[in-house]
């Protein structure tokens, strides 16, 4: 299980893995343990998080973003423990997060919104305008930066979400369904962006679109019923499937092979 290592690491980091979870359990609501005993180590690179609905992917991402506190187990982000009750200010400055239901202030313009999020992430004051411009250009919204958010289409709003996630040059980037609403050309562009980012950042992308995983991710994590089912390269996932499994592409066949397990008790719909 080897994470993709980038040769561009300049300084030796004091931690081995950006994200490291041992026996992680996260509760959702009152009783349900959505993440049930997870052991995961993620380093630099683009990691795709696949799994059926209700598997706990969003809960895991929320726990990684320090929005939810783990109920049991340990979670270390960038070498720091993320399980305590502290505010994690220093940690949160280096995290970028795009939630699945991305809420935004409709009256703000694109630039103002990304600037506001940059301020919220405590980007140094002098660096904010430059960082905002870079982020907006990277997602391809430079020509619409002065438009109000309520005038944008769904895909553009999503791209603004990606822009605010990368504006503080995070070491950990968490994207929950980032390609929802993007058209095929935008998805291609987005995959290129992911590959750029994966060179020096630990990117975790939770998605349903297997083609995105195939094209952009260096590592695939399969998640079901709160537990890790598989972690490996996309080729390894494809190799796990055979012609007898359901699927239109090798990856989908591998996916169904690993998930449609006779030991599964819950449905996969």
């Amino acid at each position: 299980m080897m994470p993709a290592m980038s040769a561009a690491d300049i300084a030796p980091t004091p931690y081995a893995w950006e994200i490291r979870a041992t026996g992680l359990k996260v509760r959702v609501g009152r009783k349900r343990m959505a993440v049930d005993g997870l052991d995961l180590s993620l380093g630099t690179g683009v990691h795709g998080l696949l799994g059926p609905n209700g598997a706990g992917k969003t809960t895991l991402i929320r726990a990684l973003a320090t929005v939810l506190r783990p109920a049991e187990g340990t979670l270390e982000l960038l070498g720091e423990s993320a399980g305590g009750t502290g505010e994690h200010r220093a940690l949160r400055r280096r995290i970028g997060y795009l939630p699945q239901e991305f809420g935004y202030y409709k009256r703000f313009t694109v630039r103002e919104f990304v600037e506001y999020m940059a301020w919220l992430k405590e980007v140094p004051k002098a660096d904010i305008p430059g960082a905002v411009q870079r982020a907006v250009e990277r997602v391809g919204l430079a020509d619409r930066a002065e438009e109000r958010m309520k005038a944008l289409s769904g895909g553009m709003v999503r791209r603004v979400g990606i822009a605010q996630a990368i504006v503080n040059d995070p070491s950990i980037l968490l994207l929950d369904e980032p390609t929802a609403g993007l058209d095929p050309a935008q998805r291609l562009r987005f995959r290129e962006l992911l590959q750029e980012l994966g060179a020096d950042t630990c990117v975790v992308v939770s998605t349903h679109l297997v083609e995105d995983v195939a094209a952009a991710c260096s590592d695939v994590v399969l998640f079901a019923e709160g537990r890790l089912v598989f972690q490996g390269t996309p080729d390894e996932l494809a190799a796990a499937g055979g012609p007898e499994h359901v699927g239109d592409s090798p990856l989908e066949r591998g996916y169904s092979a690993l998930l449609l397990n006779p030991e599964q008790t819950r449905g996969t719909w």
Partner: protein
Amino acid sequence: MNFRVLHIELRRSVAPWAGGVVLASALAFLYLVNGSWWNGTTAWTAQWTSLALWTRSLLFYLWPLAVGFGALQGLRDHRSKMVELLTSTPRPARHRAAVPAGATAITLASAYAFLVLVGGVQVLANTRYTHLSWLPISLVGALFLVAGAVLGMGAGRALPSVLTPPLLAMGAFAFTALMHLSLGRTATIDPATGLTTTAPNRLSLLSPEVDEVHSTLVTLSASVHIGQTIWVLGTATTGFALLVAATRRARLLALAPVLAGAVLALLVLPSDPRRMYVVDEAAAKPVCDGPVCVTTAHEDRLADLAGPGRKALRLLHGALGDRAPVSVRENTAVQPEGSTPRWSRTTVLFGFDDDIVADARGEEQLTWALLAKGLVPGCAPVGWSGFGGDEYAQAVAVGWVLGELKPLPGTPAGASGEVDAKARPVWKELKALPPAEQLARINAMRAAALSCKGDPFDVLSGKAAR
């Protein structure tokens, strides 16, 4: 504080709307409605204190409006579904809350200041008496507005429902209305006249509105300012704490400052209305030209008054001899509304707002007005105006001194014929009496008028039994 972010919030939050609506509606209200704030010496453009008090009394609806706007702002995070994203950011909640609160504070304070400025420019042109003791009134008013908006924001965040802004605004309006009308006033029955009058009580001072003030010399006392500031700071603290609170326990704790503020404020605030609305000593200081004195506030009118005042005193001395008044003074006694006014035998007390003085045009009419005030000052309860026996007695008495019946200023348009019809027979009868009898009757009438016991007109007609 990042000024770029503040600039963004100043443009995109509810702040500019709040400031704009407050300013526009206040100016529209003052200018389009022909209310009592345009009349007399207590007009809002006549004096600094009157300006401050009238702009402050607009808060009866501006404060609830600020609370409603604040609630709209407080709902913003919930309606935009930004809560999740905001939780994952490092900046502490107090920084995040300070920006829209600060932006709204800036715009509301500026709107209020501009409103006062619009009036202030006119006051500068209208009066020469400048002072700064009116500033606390307006400052506390601006504080009320800002604190109301912050409280609304906190409440909107704590209760993120669509119903919160209208119900909160309406609740605040009901609060000011009830404080002004029923809960905030205590009723007393004056045993002498049998009239029920109401006076503000301590609780009413928690509302930003002030009573309508009928004299330029009356202002709010320092303890009122201090008490209201404590109350306002309590509400602002609670509002901000609610904005920042994350857990339910923190939200309950956040209610403590407003309760503590209320208790402390009620301890500091005076309960006696006479200690709430006090006479402004500096404004009431007399400025004299010989026997004629006015208050410092009206110093610019002394020159017009001096001549007629002296002439009136001379005429009175000639008519009444030793029992004549020796000086003319502007009345500085501030009495509770509905009470019987108190007059002096040795001084002609008048007010610039008395109908008879306000309507006088020219020196001659002013002399007659002062004569009338020296003979029959008028016993209508303070703050009430009427027309009746006192005015007929005035006409007859002034006519007796001058030698002929003159139409006195201040008589309503249709009533001059009636006054003449009633006064002339009595005046003729008086003239027909021997001079000693005339003087005795006039002195008896004056005694009745000055003590407000008995009807002076009846005494003049000879009807009242001695």
